């Protein structure tokens, strides 16, 4: 098991390096540091000296991949790619192009993001699983048929509609919750209620359909017929056998959501003005702050890889037949 974990971690390194290379190419080769400086400092009137100063402050004055003038190892290490990559790998995110410390910003904004993402994930899972189990149990009934219609309709509605419609109906007309904003502590619940509701609704339709297919596939297996033949109750068959065995595909789908848990639903956060990581990233995109976007890409892919690893580990818990070698 530990050998397996070690191998997986080692395997993650080249992938992260590749991710970094791609973002690096996107940011520094397509767009030279001079262009960045010009964009950050304002207009074309900016002097060459100011650009040089801006570059030196951020260490962008080094060559990109190969430092020909330096001697020995420094030829490869005293470069922009090497230093920026090393910094990210040691979780030293440095300062944003706007001058703020990225690490502190991340810590501050993680809370609100998690406060939305965790309840959404939990509620989503519970509601979708319960609905799908009910559908699988009552398959072929009128309820099943109408649920299919509702699910396809829900899938076809743009997520923006839920957000805008929810804000208009619940916040503006009924005045149950504030339209947007955020507050610390318990007061946050009032601000979070609507985003969480919207977050659950947005992907409910497709999830219910997907879980239902998984359950139906399991219910066609012979062990289910055997369990019924033994005289087990429907509830026991559904919960103890079908649900348990359907866990593997379900877990695979859930863990993929891990990066979004951290990054927050980008669009939801922006619409509800919640100061989480999602709105942080969008602000950075709109302000063209490359340092922040690069950090977020790195963290996002790190979490994705971590998620894949967790998926494998969760298989062991969900299915005793799985062994990690």
């Amino acid at each position: 098991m530990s050998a397996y974990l070690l191998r997986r971690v080692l395997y993650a390194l080249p992938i992260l390096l590749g991710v970094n290379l791609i973002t690096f190419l996107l940011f520094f080769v397509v767009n030279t540091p001079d262009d960045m400086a010009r964009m950050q400092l304002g207009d074309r009137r900016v002097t060459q000296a100011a650009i040089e100063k801006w570059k030196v402050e951020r260490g962008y004055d080094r060559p990109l991949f190969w430092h020909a003038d330096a001697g020995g190892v420094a030829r490869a290490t005293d470069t922009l790619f090497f230093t920026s990559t090393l910094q990210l790998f040691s979780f030293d995110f440095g300062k944003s192009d706007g001058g703020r410390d990225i690490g502190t910003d991340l810590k501050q904004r993680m809370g609100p993001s998690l406060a939305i993402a965790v309840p959404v994930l939990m509620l989503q899972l519970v509601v979708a699983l319960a609905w799908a189990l009910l559908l699988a149990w009552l398959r072929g009934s009128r309820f099943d048929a109408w649920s299919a219609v509702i699910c396809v309709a829900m899938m076809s509605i743009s997520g923006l509609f839920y957000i805008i419609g929810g804000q208009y109906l619940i916040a503006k007309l009924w005045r149950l919750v504030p339209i947007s904003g955020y507050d610390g502590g318990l007061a946050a619940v009032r601000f979070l209620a609507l985003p969480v509701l919207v977050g659950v609704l947005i992907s409910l339709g497709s999830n219910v359909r997907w879980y239902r297919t998984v359950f139906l596939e399991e219910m066609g297996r012979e062990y289910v017929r055997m369990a019924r033949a033994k005289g087990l109750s429907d509830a026991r068959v559904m919960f103890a056998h079908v649900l348990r065995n359907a866990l593997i595909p379900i877990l695979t789908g859930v863990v993929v959501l891990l990066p979004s848990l951290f990054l927050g639903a980008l669009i939801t956060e922006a619409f509800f003005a919640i100061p989480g990581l999602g709105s942080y990233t969008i602000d950075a995109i709109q302000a063209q702050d490359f340092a922040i976007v690069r950090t977020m890409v790195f963290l996002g892919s790190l979490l994705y890889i971590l998620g894949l690893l967790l998926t494998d580990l969760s298989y062991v818990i969900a299915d005793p037949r799985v062994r990690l070698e």
Partner: protein
Amino acid sequence: MGEFTLLTTDACLFALLAVAIVYCLQARRHEHLRAPWREVWRRPVAVGASVVLGAFMLVAVADSIHFESRAGSGDGDVLSALDIALRPLRTGSETTYSAPLAAYAYSRESVVDESGKLTRIYPRLVHGGAHLADPGREHGADVARRAAAGAASGLLGGLALSTLCVLAVARRRNRAPVAAARLLLAGRAGFPWRSLLGVSTALLIVIGICAALAPHYHVFGTDKVGNDVLYQALKSVRTGILIGLLTTLISLPFALALGIAAGYFRGPIDDAVQYLYTTLSSIPGVLLIAAAALMLDVYMTRHAADFDMLAARADLRLLALCAILGITSWTSLCRLLRAEALKLREIEFVVAAQALGVRSTTILRRHLLPNVMHIVMITTVLDFSGLVLAEAALTYIDIGVDPSMDSWGNMINGARLELAREPAVWWSLAAAMSFMFALVLAANLFADAVRDAFDPRLRQFGADRDLPAATRES
């Protein structure tokens, strides 16, 4: 009308249409290609959905035939066939917001009347209801009369179409027309005619109502600068469909070549391809798109001289968006194709080909490629609706299509703050949302049928084994 011009995306769309036509001709001649489609056309839901999709497609194609307008005509630099057909909608703009079907403006304006007194009234619109002498009295009756006339002509068109179909069935089956009509109504004519004719008639009625009202009113109102919302929504169809189709088209060659090669050759090629797609897919898609869009913006500002024409600039931006979306989405298809190729390489006909000394490239082309096409087909139709929805979301965070381009995302983005007005300006949102909903719903329903028909795993058990009764009618 000026000279015919071909924007890059137009060329792509026409190329795609050509491929589709070639495929249809191929499919007609080969039974194994026809069988799954016959399965699709047996389903009423799929047939109904394809009627709607066809209508959207028609709008998109009409909007892709572009003409460069003559200098000094006062129009934009490029016009499409759709623009020319919808001339009254395009030119009949107001000064600002107006509600759907309104005859009066949305907000009060100060007007000096004949006696020289300054009063604040709701002024008449320039185009909406301009033909009415006294809107207060005639407005409702006029709208109802025109709508009824439009609906009646739509119904008439639907009935005419139905009669033609009945006659065609009667002729082919050698029955009397009445017997054929009875067969059709009972849903026992071998093809879901009821669904085809029902959806077509409903569509014709809606089009009839809009066509009857549009020259005299703004059916969906006007936006902030007074442009007709119905016209914008129709123009956005092309953007949505292009994003849905071109993205897959762009990602297809990569996914096919790399996926099949990785699965067939295994070894170092497989490792390299796996590394590539794991790396790409581990970058959060939105961020990759955002980063690439950012770079494109910078590039375009630096090379502003190369993009003098507004339409060409927006067009290139759309193409770039498709390319970026394609790069982020090809990985999942590549993974599926690799798995399928791994399976196929062990099957006897491939082993036999190898033993006979057939070259690898020939094996890949002749034996593997045709056998993974069903996966490509399924992915293309399944991805379509997600991509249409993604456009709206991406445009909202400013990394989608060009702001000057008509798209549902831009319509929503421009109108979302206007709900806070009193009274709320809801019509832009409603129009964009309902057009998007219609297209995506049709695409989802169609995709379901295609998946069930093409997926051999599902086919084994009988395609509609776990479909609810509602979608299985007839």
